[in-house]
């Protein structure tokens, strides 16, 4: 059978917000673009984003500006973000939102008819453009429809709507291919038929999203298997700061139908309490000294706070996310958790049913419809949920070009650097618009000096053999059970709270699973065979997990989405360091790389006393680069 071949200028892997925005940019510059979706067009994980897209349009408070947004982002990331990415993001996100409106997006409005903006954690002013709680869907649908608009234009000009931009849905890429040290294309297979496809394209944009499925409890869908992280690594790119993952303290752990789904903080804000399997309201035991004056140490006072906030300290259930997560983790590890590895979060005994339904309508509705859990009658079982990875492909801020691989670009969650050690809510939707566009621009610029780079027969043969291999093995390992084992390891040993000895154990176990995964066998044929698909996803997840574990053991401090019980403090020395993962064909290696110093004009946006908490005296006395 002859191999299906396609030639394009730009191949975009991933059809979430970042990928679609990159595709639009490249097509509008006249390039021929292919978009690869692992699932159907328009189903990417971007649809799950609820809160909104952060952009300092100043529609609700005109004191907002890119400088304030930049400051908030840097603080949120504990000053580990790449300053230039955070700067570009803050400067360009308003234009990216307004542009969506010219493509037909309908955001919620202010009284003056402008785009409404809502408050969100870490943002100084109301900043998130939103559409109720389905902002992500609006973004993806708008760009999906923009792509149709471009296709209709091509159709009018050439008679073929798919002549300039084509969507390849339900296709998995297994290899990004290089020739002569530069990107040449990619190889993969149709999920529907299992048949193989070669794409020849001198520029490849990776926009594959996150890695949540590496973990047992996650808010990510099946697609979040770190494909782009692994493809980039294998193509010779670097990953930066893979130890930083965002966990939400209260995701549902039971029943399975809602496992991983987030229970918003407002459930605790409305009076929900956390208890262990002894019925103890355990959070009182976990108030750190620095918070003792702000949080109640007894139930009576905590309960009074809900009616009188001026004369009582807050209940400890409302401590910052990482503190709550740490406490839940400690209770479960001490054997006081629920049988499914969580703790109880209960509003039912404290608030009348009709009040819960009124104040938390979507929460009530969601759990009732999805799982038959009536939160007005029973407790929820919750625990830390893997939500977002800050780490990702190391890129040049201006062009989103992957460092070290000419022709490769990365944008969105799969790219690293932008969010430092912790991402602010609302910054991911704006991130994917800003850097999706920049990845498209980067590809356009690159192609001015780089033409087609044909894929060799040897590379094709190698990629082909890899796809066939699991079918030829007899009675080997089952990919489902290996995946489940990996999830146990990551969840228990490199999860939300880490210690050196456990991470070491995780590294060993991941290596062992990786060895066994080389022997994965697949039953059934090639046509839409999920066991076969998982065999490749598993390979990606193992590589990502290795990078995360090895970075986590290297960073001997606690910062943002990386908490070490054995190194509980933030360390100014470690702020100067990015951890770079690379792949030598067998294993992931980690090296330390200095973070770029801020230029003076950005340095001066901060109060020096604030910077002193994060920087060494030498850094603050220098006051930026120029």
């Amino acid at each position, binding site marked *: 059978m002859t191999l299906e071949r396609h030639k394009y200028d730009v191949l975009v892997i991933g059809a979430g917000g970042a990928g679609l925005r990159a595709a639009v940019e490249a097509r509008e510059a006249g390039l021929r673009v292919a978009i690869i979706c692992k699932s159907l067009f328009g189903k990417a994980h971007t649809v799950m984003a609820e809160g909104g897209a952060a952009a300092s349009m100043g529609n609700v408070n005109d004191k907002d500006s890119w400088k304030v947004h930049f400051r908030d982002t840097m603080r949120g990331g504990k000053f580990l973000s790449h300053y230039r990415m955070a700067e570009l993001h803050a400067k360009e996100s308003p234009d990216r939102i*307004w542009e969506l409106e010219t493509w037909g997006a309908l955001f919620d409005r202010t009284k003056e008819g402008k785009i409404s903006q809502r408050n969100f954690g870490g943002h100084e002013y109301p900043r998130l453009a939103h559409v109720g709680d389905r902002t992500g869907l609006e973004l993806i649908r708008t760009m999906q429809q923009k792509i149709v608009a471009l296709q209709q234009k091509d159709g009018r000009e050439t008679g073929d*709507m798919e002549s300039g931009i084509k969507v390849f849905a339900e296709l998995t890429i297994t290899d990004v291919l290089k020739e002569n040290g530069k990107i040449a294309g990619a190889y993969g297979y149709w999920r529907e038929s299992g048949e193989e496809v070669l794409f020849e394209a001198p520029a490849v944009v990776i926009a594959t999203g996150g890695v949540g499925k590496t973990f047992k409890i996650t808010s990510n869908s099946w697609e979040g298997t770190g494909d782009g992280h692994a493809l980039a690594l294998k193509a010779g790119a670097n990953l930066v700061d893979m130890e930083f993952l965002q966990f939400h303290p209260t995701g549902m752990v039971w029943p399975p*139908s809602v496992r991983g789904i987030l229970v918003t903080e407002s459930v605790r804000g409305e009076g929900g309490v956390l208890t262990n399997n002894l019925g103890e309201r355990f959070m009182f035991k976990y108030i750190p000294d620095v918070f003792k004056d702000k949080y109640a140490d007894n139930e009576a006072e905590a309960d009074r706070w809900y009616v009188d906030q001026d004369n009582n300290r807050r209940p400890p259930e409302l401590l910052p996310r990482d503190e709550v997560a740490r406490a839940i983790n400690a209770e479960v590890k001490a054997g006081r958790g629920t049988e499914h590895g969580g703790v109880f979060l209960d509003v039912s005994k404290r608030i009348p049913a009709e009040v819960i339904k009124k104040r938390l309508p979507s929460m009530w509705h969601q759990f009732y419809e999805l799982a038959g859990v009536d939160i007005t009658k029973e407790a929820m079982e919750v625990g830390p949920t893997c939500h977002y990875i800050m780490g990702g492909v190391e890129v040049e801020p201006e062009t989103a070009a992957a460092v070290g691989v000419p022709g490769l670009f990365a944008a969105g969650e799969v790219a690293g650097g932008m969010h430092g050690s912790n991402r602010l809510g609302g910054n991911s939707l704006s991130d994917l618009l800003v850097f999706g566009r920049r990845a498209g621009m980067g590809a356009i610029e690159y192609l001015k000096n780089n033409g087609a780079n044909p894929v060799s027969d040897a590379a094709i043969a190698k990629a082909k053999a890899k796809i066939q291999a699991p079918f030829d093995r007899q009675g080997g390992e089952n990919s489902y059970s290996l995946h489940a084992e990996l999830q146990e390891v990551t969840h228990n040993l490199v999860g939300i709270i880490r210690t050196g000895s456990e991470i070491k154990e995780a590294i060993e176990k991941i290596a062992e699973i990786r060895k066994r995964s080389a022997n994965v066998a697949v039953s059934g044929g090639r046509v839409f065979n999920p066991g076969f698909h998982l065999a490749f996803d598993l390979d990606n997840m193992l590589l990502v997990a290795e990078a995360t574990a090895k970075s986590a053991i290297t960073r001997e401090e606690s910062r943002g989405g990386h908490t070490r019980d054995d190194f509980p403090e933030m360390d100014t020395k470690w702020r100067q360091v990015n951890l770079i993962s690379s792949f030598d064909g067998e294993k992931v290696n980690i090296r330390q790389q200095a973070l770029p110093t801020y230029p003076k004009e950005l340095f001066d946006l901060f109060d020096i006393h604030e910077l002193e908490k994060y920087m060494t005296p030498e850094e603050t006395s220098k006051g930026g680069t120029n």
Partner: protein
Amino acid sequence: MARNVKLRIWRGDSKDGALKDVTVEANEGEVVLDVIHRVQATQMGDLAVRWNCKAGKCGSCSMEINGKPRLACMTQVASFGDDETITVTPLRAFPIIKDLVTDVSFNYKKAMEVPAYEHPKNLAPGEARMEQIDVERSQEFRKCIECFLCQDVCHVVRDHEENKKSFAGPRFFIRIAELDMHPLDMLKNRKKTAQEEHGLGMCNITKCCTEVCPEHIKITDNAIIPMKERVADIKYDPVRWLGTKIRKREGL
């Protein structure tokens, strides 16, 4: 508490297939997609099923459960009796690829036939002003998660392959209505083309689409009927008909 449920799953491909009986454990609170996944992980490693978010937001796990088009992630096992067999079959209106997965490309083709949004030429980015109340009408339709259950249930195409060519289906009637009601869209005659090119006239308002919509969009009442009424007004009202001839505009 775990219990065993009886599932009858359609297995096969475009050529041939049959219902297969399996018994699988179900835990409290689980949805049909959970037990299908358990069958996949323990008994049928190659069972094909589409899914993504498992939270009712992406519209991927559309199938027919006991004959009714539904999202498997939003259908609780507990909603069936203890002894009841749950029968899951692929969407009937679309060609089968394998097991529970169908070829829904019909819908993406129809999406490409709906003329895109047209922004006012002189309105620069950031200058748009719209009232919340005016955007809400279109926002209702933009809630659509493209599960295509409405397309599947619609009897115009469900058992009439021959109608597919000239019928866009409920999902795209709400898309046209959304653009038609968009406060800024500049393209004229959307209702007329809905009638003449997208088959709006073939709909006889049985409201099945509205009934299966997991987003509770009032497809028939808020999109299809208003468009039909306007089309009828203009086509059959002699004064307005004359107006369209004299002033050389459709008024649609």
